[in-house]
């Protein structure tokens, strides 16, 4: 077992013996399920209206009516849920004095950061996988285009990884888990609002820069089924930058 997988295994074990993962998963799946149900019911109501107007042969587009709305809402649920998963990663180690042990183990800091990030990423991807039941169930009763759904999931995975790396960095900054969670909320909401600010400024340079910095536009492209290298580059580079910063922060806490 390599050190990275040892850390991953230990972190996963810690996640699943604590109630946090179970509570977070229950809340996340419940809310996402409820949202899906609501959008489907609305879509059904609209279909009935259309049938009355057009008589019989109305086709409704589940991709537009259900999935795009659902993907847009899940983004907000993730923003609330994921910082709760990441807040303990480094803050707890420092609080419980195991941080010194980890830092004096014969492994590199890269491996520690990577192991911790990958463990929480796995938990998140598992959660995301469970939501796959929603399109699978719907496909039994209706036809829709799978392609934008797959790109939407790609978008969610990238967005989630981005949120998690923000949370990891926040957790490295403090030994207080509440502070870590709150810093990630704050930062992510701020990034969200940058998009609003960007569209307010419109087609100016400043507006374009702000829209580019915010994750909203990049995620929206993927949800609409547009896989653009520009958006992939955005997420991957943000991820690398944030993990690098977390690495530096963890390293620097030794010097204080």
């Amino acid at each position, binding site marked *: *077992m390599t*050190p990275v997988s*040892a*850390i991953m*295994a*230990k972190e996963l*074990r*810690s996640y699943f*013996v*604590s109630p946090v993962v179970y509570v977070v998963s229950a809340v996340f799946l419940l809310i996402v399920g409820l949202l899906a149900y609501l959008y489907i019911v609305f879509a059904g109501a609209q279909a009935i209206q259309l049938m009355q107007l057009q008589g019989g042969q109305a086709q409704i587009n589940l991709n537009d009516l259900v999935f795009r709305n659902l993907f847009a809402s899940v983004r907000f649920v993730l923003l609330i849920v994921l910082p709760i998963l990441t807040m303990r990663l480094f803050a707890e180690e420092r609080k*419980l*004095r*195991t941080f*010194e*042990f*980890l*830092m*004096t*183990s*014969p*492994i*590199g800091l890269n491996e520690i950061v990577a192991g911790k990030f990958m463990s929480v990423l796995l938990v998140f991807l598992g959660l995301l996988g469970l939501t796959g039941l929603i399109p699978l169930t719907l496909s039994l009763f209706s036809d829709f285009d799978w392609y934008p759904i797959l790109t939407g999931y790609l978008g969610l995975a990238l967005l989630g990884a981005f949120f998690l790396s923000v949370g990891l960095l926040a957790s490295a900054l403090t030994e207080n888990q509440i502070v870590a969670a709150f810093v990630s909320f704050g930062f992510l909401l701020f990034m969200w609002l940058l998009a609003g600010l960007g569209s307010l400024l419109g087609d100016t340079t400043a507006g374009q820069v702000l829209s580019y910095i915010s994750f909203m536009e990049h995620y929206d492209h993927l949800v609409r089924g547009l896989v653009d290298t520009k958006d992939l580059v955005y997420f991957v580079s943000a991820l690398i930058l944030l993990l690098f910063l977390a690495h530096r922060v963890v390293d620097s806490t*030794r*010097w*204080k």
Partner: protein
Amino acid sequence: MIDVQQVTKRYGQHTAIDRVTFTVAKGEVLAFLGPNGAGKTTTMRILTCFLPATEGTAQVAGFDCIDQPLEVKQRIGYLPETPPVYQELTVFEYLQFVGRLRGLKSQALRGAIVREVERLGLGSVQHRLIGNLSRGYRQRVGLAQAMLHDPPVLILDEPTVGLDPKQIIEIRELIKSLAGSHSVILSTHILPEATAVCQRVVIISGGRIVAEDTPDQLSARLRHSEKIAIVLKRPPADAEARLAQISGVHQVFAQGPAGGFMLECALGQDVREEVGRLAVTSGWGLVELKSISMTLEDVFLQLTRHEEGVSPAENALEPTVTAPAEISESSS
């Protein structure tokens, strides 16, 4: 095995340790003795590559702590002040995790866990969650962790804290048994521990090393003079002057209850017989005569009190040896 040269650590304006220099040979057990906040933990953290030194070099087994941290970390077992345990894991899972981080593979790993569990008497608790264990067991899990990969160098920060007396003796025996094959640094502020376990003692105070030697030699070296305490039932008015006339006696002070005197004599000269004869033949009523040797405890207090600015007047019974001129000036 361990070579620390002129290591200084500063936090902003505050100097935590100041030009600390010492070495530990292979198989030697060294005690790091000092009051709280003296810089023991800081020194250990530098050796374990947790903190970088501001100045100076620290080497373990020939590897530099700043340039080759991985090499150093592989050769060190470290028990920090608080045992670094994960409460949500069982003892077995925890040791498994520790072993994997240190690169132990399946068969060797299992063997190492069995060895340490047995060595530290953890058999009955190895499948219990660490969070449910008492402080003493956690401390032992911490020790098992430090020794799991059988490192040549062990750095133990107050290893017997939180243990009951029986366990303390067991752990001390364990550390003694490591001498010869392992180099051990242990920090403590319990003096008998240092004398019981260690071949060499480094006393650190205010971030500086104030003494370094074997426990015996340390007290001998600091004993600039022999001291004799006597108690006379009927001391004459000129007792001090008459006692001072005995050859070999440097100084005589009255001290303690009426009739008590402290004699400071030249080193290596036993004047007890002379003193006794004088007192008896003069009919002073000699009721007590004893030589006072300095224990390590006295040495420790001597060396560290200085820094804390405690005046010797409060401890009149304590022999004042180091820099007596300085101390008497400040107290008068």
